[in-house]
């Protein structure tokens, strides 16, 4: 049983933001970094499957510069066996399709039984990398997975739909799943374990062909605050009356 988990070091933003001089990215001074929340769940799920099957390997793969190894260390500290970090300068600020191409090249080489990715990353929130990766690898994929049951050459998975509906699907293995938060309770990686995980191997790979970018960021900005908001105060009666007036006005 070999499971590859694609993880990402995400940037977190506070309530203040400034952009770089070319206005195409957030000034790194305003960013902190962390392991993408979804990825701790997908790592945990992979570890549980490995441990239940009693053999196998969990490999974490990430696209990122050297700093991204901090997020990978946490996955290794949780129990993943080794890591592969993919990086070239061309991947700086890359779109999800380009990232998926970089991942696909490495994962194809690994030939895993399962590929897990988080549903989305908390910073760019596109939910695209995982599904694009499945396409590139030619694997069946199920998105927003909340439960996995393994059978013989098959897997039965629950995927979450709108409105609390669950869709139970049977897929052939190998397959790619994008994992939803709440599927398990990710274990705690002690700092001791994170330190000791420094001894686990992280291979660094440079991608050979990333192809054409799917998009380029032209400008980042904080949108103008919407004008015309009217704060209503006074008694409930007055507020209700004013709302009714506004609705009537707008319906005209």
């Amino acid at each position, binding site marked *: 049983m070999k499971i590859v988990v694609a993880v990402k070091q995400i940037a*977190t*933003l*506070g309530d*203040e933001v400034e952009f770089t001089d070319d206005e195409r990215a957030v000034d790194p*001074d*305003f960013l*902190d*970094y*962390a*392991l993408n929340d979804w990825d701790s769940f997908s790592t945990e799920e992979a570890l549980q499957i490995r441990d239940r099957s009693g053999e196998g390997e969990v490999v974490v793969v990430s696209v990122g510069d050297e700093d991204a190894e901090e997020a990978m260390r946490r996955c290794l500290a949780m129990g993943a066996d080794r890591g592969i970090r993919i990086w070239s300068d061309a991947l700086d600020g890359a779109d999800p399709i380009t990232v998926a191409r970089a991942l696909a090249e490495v994962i194809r080489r690994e030939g895993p039984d399962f590929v897990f990715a988080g549903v989305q990353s908390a910073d760019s929130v596109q939910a695209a990398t995982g599904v694009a990766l499945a396409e590139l690898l030619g694997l069946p994929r199920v998105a927003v997975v909340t439960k996995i049951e393994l059978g013989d050459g098959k897997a039965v998975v629950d995927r979450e739909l709108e409105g609390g509906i669950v869709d139970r699907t049977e897929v052939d293995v190998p397959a790619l799943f994008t994992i939803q938060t709440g599927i398990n*309770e990710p*274990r*705690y990686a*002690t*700092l*001791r*374990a*994170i*330190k000791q995980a420094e001894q686990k191997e992280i291979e660094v790979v440079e991608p050979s062909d990333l192809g054409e970018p799917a998009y380029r960021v032209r400008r980042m900005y904080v949108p103008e605050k919407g004008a015309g908001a009217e704060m209503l105060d006074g008694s409930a009666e007055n507020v209700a009356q004013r709302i009714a007036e506004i609705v009537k006005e707008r319906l005209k």
Partner: protein
Amino acid sequence: MDVLFAADETRKTFANLGLWEKGLWYVLILVSTGIFAWGMWRHARKYLRGRSAFTLDRPGRRVRRAVTTTLSHSWIRRRDPVAGLGHLLIFYGFVVLFIGTAILAFQDDFARPILGFDFWHGWFYLGYSLFLDLFGVALVVGLGVMAVKRGILKPFRLDYWRPDRAEGEYDRKPYVIGDWTFLGVLFFLALTGFLLEGFRIAIANPDFEVWAPFGWLLGQMFIAGGLEGGSAESARLVTWWVHGVAALGFVASIPFTKAVHMLVSPAGVAVRDDTAGKVLAPIPADAKPEEVGYGTIADLSWKHLVDLDACTKCGKCHEACPATSSGYPLSPRDLILDLREQAEGAMGIRSALHLPPLHEERESILGDPIRPETLWSCMQCMACVEICPVGIEHVPIINQMRRRLVEQGEMDPLLQGTLETIYTSGNSFGEQKRKRGRWTRDLDFEVKDIRKEPAEHLWFLGDYASFDPRNQRVTQALARVLNHAGVDFGILYDAERNAGCDVRRVGEEGLFTSLAEENVKAISACHFERIFSWDPHSFHTLRNEYPQFGGTWTVLHHTQLLLELLEAGRLMPKPLGYTVTYHDPCTLGRYNGVYDAPRQVLAALGLELREMPRNRDNSFCCGAGGGRIWMQELKRDDTPRPAEMRIDEATSLGKLDYFVVACPKDVTMYEDAIKTSGHQGEIELREISELVLESLDLDTVAVGAAADERETNGKEPV
């Protein structure tokens, strides 16, 4: 070898035993001391199997401390003078009678037969008789005091109620029987001793025996009752054997009963680590997961194994513990007793006093009998360690077991989330690092970035003082006070991390190490003379625990700095005239002994301080310590929280203007508790800095208004 009569006052020993009877007696002595020695060896072997602890530095001082605290009973008398007196009488009664017996043995078995020297007569004999007689009475009175306490007064600390088990889930009857047997056996020994004396005096009734007044009195009573001469002689013989065999039986039983505390407890005091619980030991970097903390009996250090045997079940920790009294499933006493039962079962004398199951030496004791919720209930406030008369280290023992739980990832999700937040953001609020200095923006002066320019003082803030809106008001007040006094200070801004005091107390030693290393690195790169903090947790850890990471600085609590400024005339307060009470923060008081500085500041502000019953070293934790502020509630619903009990305690003093604190977590806890305990409007909370600022009569409107506005927009702390 019948006793030769001296020309002057003395008496016959051995009740006129024949040779073979004397022989039998010496055989019994050998058997008794043999059993005693075997039992003590079993204990010693148990300690020798413990993990290594700290080095026993300054042995002379340690022995001196054990001797003086034992002789003076200074630790035993604290917070219970009656039991202290009872114990003192028993102790001195027992010791003097023991020494008396030893003198007699020396005279009979060594001085006379070998040296041919006889001293047990004349004035020495009379003094000896008087002394032993009086101390025999002291022993009986002391036993009486203890029996009254146990049987009639029945204080909370002796009731064996367990907060961590349901009614019927445990049985403490064996302990109760053991306690009463111990009292009973000592009483029986004293009683038969006095009877023996009475019978002996009744035989010949020499005048000089009036020097043993109570024995003499008994003798006269026997004579008056017609018991003298031959019948007294046979009564004496029987009593002699009963007393003698009982005494030998008692000696043999010492290692197997609570009497062992007579030997182990003073030893525990001698080997006590003064920094126990205050400065926790690091985990070696190369430790394997099964070597982290305590998960089995085999993991305990020899010192902690000694602690288990030293416990006398006096219940002082049980009474002092804020978790026990506010309905958390933890009693430090029962935790120690559970561990002792396991240690006895696994490595030594198998005691009858245990609840099944017992575990093997290397079998996990976490879960059963030591429940995780018991360990997580601890506030690491040190109330138990501080009051323990025999130097037991409950707090580091609990911390070691927490370390194992953390290593195994067994903790509540809230706590796990907080630790992960601290790891990723460097603070427990999950705020961005760059927001650390945001509170300075509301001030009308710049606060130096000490990374860029030197300052006399480095101000280490701590998370609550930096990010919590209510606490930011205190931080700003203190900044204004210091600015007004012309104090040259700067802060670390983005480079400050959570100091790690509570992270360490939770048991996440790795994260603590990483935080400490980052802070030490950041601080070491700055130029300053002293560090201060208004957070006692940061103050404590920087001052006492960062030396383990190479950070050796002069660290002050802000109350100490404020006192310096007041004494130097750099702050000229106008008297405020309020009536207040003051809550000693655990990490400032019990951890660091800073009790007077805050009180002196309050006095300098012209405040009348009314002390709560539990003050200074007996201060009652707010309930936030040891990481509890980051965990889900574990207590029963039908008891008030520690902070609410504390507000009740304050308001019971009569009309007070302010409940004064000197710790950011106290600000948070007691602001809440004033609201939830139903005392809103009766009392308000102030941090000392806020009162100092008020006394300076500066214009405070600007700061307050800006902070208030942000508070309404601010988010709730984690």
